C-alpha cells in the first residue's frame, strides 16, 4: 500500500493509476469474486507471474502479507544506514521483527534464513547479483552421481533467462566462457573499480576464470529507471531504483493490465474441494478473515513460505499437508552454506562504495574434481567491504581490537578490503526441512514454521577448499592480509527446494511445469521447486522458471482443470 504520499517509481502517480490503486484497496473488503489466477506472494516470482498472466488477459489477484515500500524509506542516503541495516532493515525476520513479518523457530538450524516481506519481496534487500545456473547444475546425478537431475536442461531454460534479463535490466559483459553461447546481458557491465581490477589481473596471471558479474542493477538508464550511482547500499534498499525489484519492474505493468494486488494479506491455507484448489483463506492486518476464490492457485511465497502454506493446509484427505503424497513438502531445504575471504590491501580502494552487487565472479573451481574429496563446487563473487561501522565492529571475517591499537586495525581495514563471497552448492538432504512449529504463530494466529537444517560434510569440505583457493587469489592480487569467515550464520539468502519438481510423483511435489502432481490447478513458481541448489545466486533461475511456468500455463489454459 502506498502510504503517506502518491509517489511511485520516483514520480507522482497518474491520477488514473492512483484511482485504480484506491479502487483496489476499497475493493478488498467488499468484493470476493473469483479470479482466474490467485498468486500468493508479490516478490520475484509472484511479480513475474502476475505481469505475464495479466498481460495475457487473465484476471489476477495477488495476496501479499507485506506492503508497498517507497524508495524514500530506504536508509542508504542517511548516516544511519549501517545501524538500521542491523535491525529494521536486517534481512532476518527474527531480528527485524516488523509487523509484516512472520516468526521463525530457528533453534535447530545452522544457517538463519533471510527474506523480506513486501511488494518486491526479498528483492528489496538482495544484492542484485544475477548469474544463471550452469549447464551441469541441471544434471548433477548424471554427471556426478549425487542428488538428482532436473527434469529440464540449461538449453531449455536459456530463452527464459534471456527474456527475464531484458525485463529486469541486467548489466554485464557478453561472452563469459562459463556458459554456452547465447544472448548476453542487455546493458554493459557496472564499473569494476580498482580492487576488482587488481584481482582480475591476479586471475589472469594464475590462468583462472574470472568475469564481470552480471547484476540486475542498471549501468545505463533503462525503461524509465535511473542507473546505479555506486552508493554501496544495495542491501538496505536501492534509493535510486537502479536495482531491479518487481515493485518497479513488473507490478506496475501487471496492475496496468488489471492485476489486483492486496497487501497486508496473510494466507492461512489453500482450500480444496473435490481434488482441486478453490482459493485461499486469508487474514487482513486486523485479523478479519477473507476467502479469495480462484480457478488456479500459484504459490510464490519463497521456499519457506510456500512450504508453510502447504503444511498448514491439512484436510482429512491431506493430513500431512496439501499436495504432499510424496512426503517431500517442506523437505530438501537448501540454503547455500556461505564463506567469505577478505583481502586487505595497502592502498585505499574506497571499498565502501560500488555495487553491492558483485563486481566480478569466478567459476574456476565450480565443477567436480574428485581428487578434492568432495563433489560439486562454489561460485565466487567479489564485493566491497562496507562502511566504517561494519569495518570497526568484530563482524564477518574481521578480528576485533580494542584499546589504542583499535585505530591502527581500523586504518588497516577501512576502505582497503575486497571480499570474495563463496556460495557452495548445497546438496539436498531430506532431513533439512521446514515443519510447522507446535506453538509459534504469526500476529494473526497462523502457525509459524520451524527450520531444521544442518550443514553437510560435503559442504564443509567444499568451503574449506574454496577458502584456501580464494585466499591464494587475494595473495596473488597483493593482499598483505587475508581474513576468512568459514561459515556465516546469517547467510540464508537462498531458500530453495521444499517442493521440488520432477517427473515422478513419488519423488517430487510438482512437475516440470511447476504444477502439483496431486492438485492439478495448484502451482509453485518460487525457489521451492529447485531440484538441486547449484552454487549460483538463484534469483535469475527463479525468475526464468516462473516465466516458463506461467507461459506454459497460458498456452495450456483451455485444458487446465478448474473447479466448477
Amino acid at each position, binding site marked *: 500500500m502506498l502510504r503517506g504520499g502518491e509517489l511511485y517509481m520516483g514520480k507522482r502517480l497518474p491520477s488514473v493509476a492512483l484511482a485504480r490503486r484506491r479502487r483496489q484497496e476499497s475493493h478488498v473488503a467488499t468484493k470476493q469474486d473469483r479470479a482466474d489466477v490467485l498468486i500468493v506472494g508479490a516478490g520475484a516470482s509472484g511479480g513475474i507471474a502476475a505481469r505475464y498472466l495479466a498481460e495475457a488477459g487473465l484476471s489476477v489477484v495477488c495476496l501479499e502479507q507485506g506492503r508497498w515500500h517507497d524508495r524514500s524509506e530506504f536508509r542508504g*542516503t*542517511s*548516516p*544511519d544506514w549501517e*545501524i*538500521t541495516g542491523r*535491525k*529494521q532493515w536486517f534481512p532476518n525476520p527474527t531480528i527485524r*521483527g*516488523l509487523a509484516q513479518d512472520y516468526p521463525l523457530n530457528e533453534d535447530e538450524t545452522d544457517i538463519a534464513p533471510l527474506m523480506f516481506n513486501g511488494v518486491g519481496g526479498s528483492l528489496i534487500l538482495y544484492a542484485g547479483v544475477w548469474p544463471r545456473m*550452469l*549447464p*551441469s547444475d541441471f544434471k548433477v546425478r*548424471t*554427471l556426478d552421481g549425487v542428488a538428482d537431475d532436473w*527434469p*529440464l*536442461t540449461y538449453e*531449455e531454460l536459456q530463452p527464459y533467462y534471456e527474456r527475464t534479463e531484458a525485463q529486469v535490466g541486467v548489466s554485464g*559483459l557478453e*561472452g*563469459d*566462457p*562459463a556458459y*554456452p553461447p547465447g544472448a548476453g546481458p542487455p546493458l*554493459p*557491465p*557496472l*564499473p*569494476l573499480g580498482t580492487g576488482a*581490477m587488481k584481482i*582480475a589481473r591476479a586471475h*589472469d596471471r594464475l590462468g583462472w*576464470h*574470472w*568475469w*564481470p558479474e552480471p547484476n540486475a542493477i542498471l*549501468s545505463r538508464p533503462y525503461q524509465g529507471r*535511473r*542507473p*546505479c550511482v*555506486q*552508493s554501496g547500499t544495495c542491501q538496505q534498499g536501492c534509493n535510486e531504483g537502479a536495482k531491479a525489484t518487481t515493485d518497479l519492474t513488473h507490478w506496475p505493468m501487471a496492475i496496468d493490465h488489471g492485476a489486483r494486488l492486496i497487501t497486508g494479506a496473510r494466507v492461512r491455507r489453500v482450500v480444496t474441494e473435490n481434488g482441486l484448489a478453490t482459493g485461499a483463506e486469508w487474514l487482513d492486518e486486523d485479523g478479519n478473515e477473507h476467502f479469495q476464490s480462484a480457478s488456479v492457485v500459484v504459490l510464490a511465497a519463497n521456499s519457506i513460505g510456500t512450504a508453510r502454506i502447504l503444511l498448514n493446509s491439512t484436510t482429512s484427505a491431506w493430513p500431512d499437508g496439501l499436495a504432499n503424497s510424496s512426503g517431500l513438502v517442506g523437505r530438501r531445504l537448501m540454503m547455500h552454506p556461505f564463506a567469505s575471504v577478505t583481502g586487505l590491501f595497502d592502498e585505499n580502494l574506497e571499498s565502501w*562504495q560500488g555495487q553491492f552487487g558483485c563486481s566480478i565472479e569466478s*567459476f574456476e573451481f*565450480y*565443477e567436480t574434481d574428485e581428487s578434492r574429496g568432495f563433489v560439486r563446487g562454489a561460485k565466487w563473487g567479489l564485493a566491497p567491504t562496507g*562502511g*566504517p*561501522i561494519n569495518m*570497526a*565492529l568484530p563482524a564477518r571475517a574481521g578480528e576485533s581490537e*580494542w584499546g589504542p*591499537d*583499535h*585505530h*591502527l586495525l*581500523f586504518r588497516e581495514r*577501512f*576502505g582497503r578490503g575486497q571480499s570474495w563471497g563463496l556460495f557452495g552448492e548445497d546438496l539436498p538432504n531430506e532431513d533439512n526441512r521446514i515443519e510447522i512449529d507446535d506453538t509459534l504463530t504469526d500476529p494473526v494466529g497462523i502457525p509459524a514454521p520451524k527450520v531444521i537444517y544442518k550443514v553437510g560434510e560435503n559442504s564443509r569440505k567444499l568451503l574449506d577448499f574454496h577458502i584456501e583457493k580464494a585466499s591464494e587469489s587475494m595473495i596473488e592480487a597483493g593482499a598483505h592480509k587475508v581474513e576468512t569467515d568459514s561459515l556465516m550464520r546469517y547467510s540464508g539468502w537462498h531458500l530453495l527446494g521444499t517442493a521440488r519438481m520432477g517427473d515422478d510423483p513419488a519423488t517430487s511435489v510438482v512437475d516440470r511445469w511447476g504444477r502439483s502432481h496431486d492438485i492439478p490447478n495448484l502451482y509453485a513458481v518460487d525457489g521451492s521447486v529447485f531440484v538441486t541448489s547449484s552454487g549460483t545466486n538463484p534469483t535469475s533461475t527463479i525468475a526464468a522458471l516462473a516465466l516458463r511456468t506461467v507461459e506454459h500455463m497460458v498456452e495450456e489454459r483451455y485444458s487446465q482443470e478448474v473447479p466448477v
Partner: protein
Amino acid sequence: MSDAIGIRPSVGENTRRALETIGDHLIPEAHGMPSAGTMGVGTTQLDVVLASRPDLAPLLEGALADAKLDDIGDFVRRLEAEDPEAHGAVTLAIVAGYYMHPEVHELIGYPGQVPKDAQRLGEREIYQEGLMDLAAKVIERGPVYRPTPNPDETS
C-alpha cells in the same frame, strides 16, 4: 524511526556515563584519533544512535544502569561472556556513535555514501583500462563449463 519498532529511546545518566567510560576504554585517544568519550558516545552521539535504534535503549539500560566499572576490561569481558546481546548493544552504541560523528569521518577520510553522478558512469568508468584485454584472454583460454548430455533427450 522509533515508531517503527514501538520503543521510546531513553537511558539514564548512569548509563550515559558508563557508556562514555567504556567508550574511552575501547576507543581511547591514540594515533591521532580522539577518544570515543570526547566524541559524545554517552551524550549527543548516543541520542543520534538511539533515534535510529531505539531498541538498544533497554539493553543499554539493563547492562549499564548499575554497572560497577572499577575494572572496565573485566566488566566488558564478563558482559560478553554472560550477556552477548547486551555486550553487542554496548559495542554497537559506542562504535556507531563514534563512526557516525562528522569529525571522525573527516579524520578517517570518509565522505559518506556519496552517490556518483550518473553521468560519470561513462565508457571510461565502465570499460576500465585493460578490462577488455583481460576479458579477451579469459575467452582465449576456452569454455569452462561442462557440456551436458543431449538436451533433446530431456526437453
